[in-house]
């Protein structure tokens, strides 16, 4: 068990910068998710922690010890790969044995045939085998032990890959999009299993994904990365409620947060789509801003009370919720509202719909996409 710290880590391939000054402090036993669109540097960060790639500058600490020059195998970490990376010529049992054999047996004891003559080998092998047995029981893969990876389904391979990581009882698990090759229902199921496994093992998990739903459902904390920058680090609720950057706001949450252009006059009053919005800003005057509001904070209202209107272009029915997509006269921007199914029964496609917003839930971003402190909430 160990905490992991990244200090001003950067990575560049030639002149192409991939990571800009990433600082990250991962507590012992924490489930931290690195999330971001592809190419944001999240996998590179994970591979730097693993030691598979070397950072250009900065330091990596594991359990307080600097590990910049330490080999991957000496860092006491285990990794689960997106493609599982099981050895296809070995059975599941042999796959699980491999990391333990490489760690516990000496080079002489690993020599085929001759190795069996070494005095310590038998004792070590029986210890290793019982270790493998234990992990196979936890993951319920005992019936698969004699098969080869090619004979397993995606979900079974996933478990074996997890097992190969678990047998060594590592200080931390590194997972590089481990669920992205599974079908949708199995993915949801494995999310729950992974969370459970994390609770049982009490080990540090560092999980890389591009799926914001996985990040929100499993993590203790989320680190949102974009273009090589670590934009925000915090618990899922906080990242969802209080994104500090417009890119975070748009990336986290599905459907996406509605972002509307607005202006702020000399008195600091914001108007959006011709409507004044009651949000008090500190020291912000005379600039164009963006307003963000999540679909669930928009409400259908009678035309007399409503602030906005839009033409209904699409009803996205998910059973429990119905998302209404509205054309509000902006060319590149639709507004999405979440409604209860019975609420939106009467609305037909092509009709004009009136809606308002929960005034407390407006988020304001400046021209550079940074969050602007709103007076009412007092904090960001």
């Amino acid at each position, binding site marked *: 068990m160990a905490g992991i710290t990244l200090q001003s880590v950067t990575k560049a391939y030639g002149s192409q910068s991939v990571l800009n000054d990433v600082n990250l402090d991962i507590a012992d036993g924490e489930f931290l998710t690195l999330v971001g669109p592809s190419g944001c540097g999240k996998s590179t960060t994970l591979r730097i922690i693993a030691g*598979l790639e070397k950072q250009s500058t900065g330091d990596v600490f594991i359990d307080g010890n600097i590990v910049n020059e330490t080999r991957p*195998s000496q860092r006491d970490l285990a990794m689960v790969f997106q*493609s599982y*990376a099981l*050895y296809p010529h070995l059975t599941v049992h042999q796959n699980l044995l*491999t990391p333990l054999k*490489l*760690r516990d047996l000496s080079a002489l004891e690993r020599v085929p045939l001759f190795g069996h003559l070494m005095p310590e080998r038998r004792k070590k092998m029986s210890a290793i085998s019982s270790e493998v047995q234990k992990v196979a029981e936890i993951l319920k893969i005992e019936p698969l032990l004699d098969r*080869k990876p090619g004979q397993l389904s995606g979900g079974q391979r996933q478990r074996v890959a997890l097992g190969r990581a678990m047998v060594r009882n590592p200080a931390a698990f590194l997972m590089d999009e481990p669920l992205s090759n599974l079908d949708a229902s199995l993915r949801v199921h494995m999310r729950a299993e992974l969370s459970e496994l994390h609770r049982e093992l009490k080990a540090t998990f560092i999980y890389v994904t591009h799926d914001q739903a996985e990040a929100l459902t499993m993590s203790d904390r989320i680190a949102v990365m974009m273009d090589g920058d670590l934009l925000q680090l915090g618990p899922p609720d906080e990242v969802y409620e209080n994104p500090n950057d417009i890119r975070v706001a748009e990336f986290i949450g599905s459907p996406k947060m509605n972002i509307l252009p607005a202006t702020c006059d000399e008195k600091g009053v914001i108007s959006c789509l011709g409507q004044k919005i009651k949000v008090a800003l500190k020291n912000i005057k005379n600039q164009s801003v963006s307003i963000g509001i999540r679909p669930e904070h928009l409400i259908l209202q009678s035309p007399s009370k409503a602030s906005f209107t839009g033409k209904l272009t699409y009803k996205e029915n998910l059973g429990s919720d119905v998302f209404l997509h509205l054309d509000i006269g902006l060319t590149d921007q639709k507004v999405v509202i979440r409604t209860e199914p019975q609420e939106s029964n009467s609305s037909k496609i092509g009709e004009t719909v009136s809606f308002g917003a929960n005034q407390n839930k407006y988020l304001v971003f400046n021209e550079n996409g940074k969050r602007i402190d709103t007076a009412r909430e007092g904090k960001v």
Partner: protein
Amino acid sequence: MQNSKVHYWFVAPALILMFILLILPVLVAATLSMTDYSLGNSSFNWIGIENYEKLFSRKSYAKMFSASLTYVLIVVPISVALGLGSALLISSLKFGNELYKAIFFLPVMATLLAMAIVWEFALNPIMGVVNDILRSGCDKKFIYGLLSGAWYGADPLQSWFGSSCEDRFPIWLGDKKYALGTIAFIGIWQGFGFNMVLYLAGLTSVPRELYQAAHMDGADSAWERFKLVTWPMLGPTHVFVITISSIRSFQVFDTVEALTEGGPSKSTYVMVYAMFEKGVRQNLLGMGSAITIVFLAFVLILTLIQVYFVNRRVHY
């Protein structure tokens, strides 16, 4: 539709061509191998399996089998190992690998007959560059000491190099002790570049994540990773490379024809050369056909072994 015979018309061209071009010649050879037919004769006698009896009882044919098998057993392992080794080295290069690939592949592309003539000059015992170089080592103390084993106290005259310095260096192609080895050396030189290219292709298909997994699992040395990932993942390539090399080695002909003509004292009398000599030079078509059929059987066995391995063992 049920009674329509039109489907036969669709497959007929392919079937007829296959029969005429591939199957018929083999059948003709098999028939001829039972006769004493010579080209130009108006008739022939059926002699049954007499040709085959000769083939498996006469001493000169025993030499033929032994020459072919020895050649294969020298060339295949060495050219496969060299091919794999050079492919591994080239694939680990950061730059310059295209150049090395081109250089090692040159002998494969070159006309072997032309190359054989160059080798004939190089290996000439009196004015050849090979023996010139070896002879020049005799006066250099350091090289003499190193090659004759004097550096670890052995008697230099007992060694191959030392005694050759005293006497003479071998007549590579004219001495039955050396001729087959020399032909095999040229075969290796010519063939391993092809194996290298096959292995390079095989190496690119090994997933990089497997190497990373091996790193994480504690395979710290390159040798461990080679054993754990590279070697097994190249399984299909091994089978293909070994089969192709074996068949190509069985087919060796041009170097023998150009350099030794099967001699000295039949030490390089390989099968395809024997076919040529019997069937074409001596116009004993029946005997030539019998050798051809045996040769085909060898190749067929090799191919069946390959099919077995491909199906059973090396695909995961």
